[in-house]
């Protein structure tokens, strides 16, 4: 039997498909009324970041590889897994947190994706993918995390 509200996508690693992926994730949440409207945009953003990381970093911009998405929901959790078969993410990236930047002197472009995922989801787990590469598991407690400041962890 299929997972309740389960959806699996196998997408080629071409950034032109990111808009389509965002549309699918958004429609999936709309169809099952999974999280409140305000949070849907944040979830779409975080999933987009995970896919972009796979395309840009794991595959180094190669467009003919595969990114897998698995979307699922229970009464309590929304869980989205993004996996690739590319270069493993260096360990120092896993520890990266978003700094509180108040001045332009502290600014560093890049390295924001994982921080954004952590701001949006209650749990962000990075592991090795089923066929090597990376697997990002994003879990959100439904009706959980409140707002954009990321302070409402449960």
């Amino acid at each position, binding site marked *: 039997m299929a997972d309740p509200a389960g959806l699996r996508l196998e997408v080629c690693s071409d950034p032109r498909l*990111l808009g389509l992926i965002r549309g699918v994730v958004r429609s999936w949440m709309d169809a099952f009324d999974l999280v409140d409207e305000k949070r849907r945009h944040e979830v779409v*953003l975080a999933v987009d970041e995970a896919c972009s990381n796979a395309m840009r970093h794991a595959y180094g911009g190669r467009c003919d590889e595969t990114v897998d998405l698995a979307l699922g929901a229970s009464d309590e959790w929304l869980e989205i897994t993004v996996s690739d078969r590319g270069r493993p993410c260096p360990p120092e990236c896993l520890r990266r947190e978003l700094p509180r930047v*108040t001045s*332009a002197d502290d*600014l560093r472009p890049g390295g*924001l994706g994982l*921080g954004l995922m952590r701001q949006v989801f209650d749990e962000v787990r990075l592991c090795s993918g089923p066929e090597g590469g990376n697997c990002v598991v994003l879990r959100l407690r439904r009706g959980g995390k409140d707002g954009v400041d990321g302070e409402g962890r449960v």
Partner: protein
Amino acid sequence: MKVESEVKGDVIVIRVEGDVDLYSSPELRTAVLKAVPRASAGVEVDLGQVTYMDSSGVATLVEGLRSANEHEVRFTLSEPSESVMKVLELARLDSVFEVRRS
């Protein structure tokens, strides 16, 4: 995404429309980094018609601001849409940029 640059007095205005993501942000980056050294007073990035922005778009704006500081010109975001403000807040960068609303 559509990007258009226009000289308005001593400011170069860059108008952005549509989705700014990993695919489209390099075009915005080119426009911003080309405008900064040519601007006599400032660069204004009009983000009112941006329907979506990801971290690569934010990184592009960060690069623009750093470059503008080096060239000693102003770097302003004008009329940022809700999606732009959301990603800047999530990235904790909303207080870093000068934002202009009419």
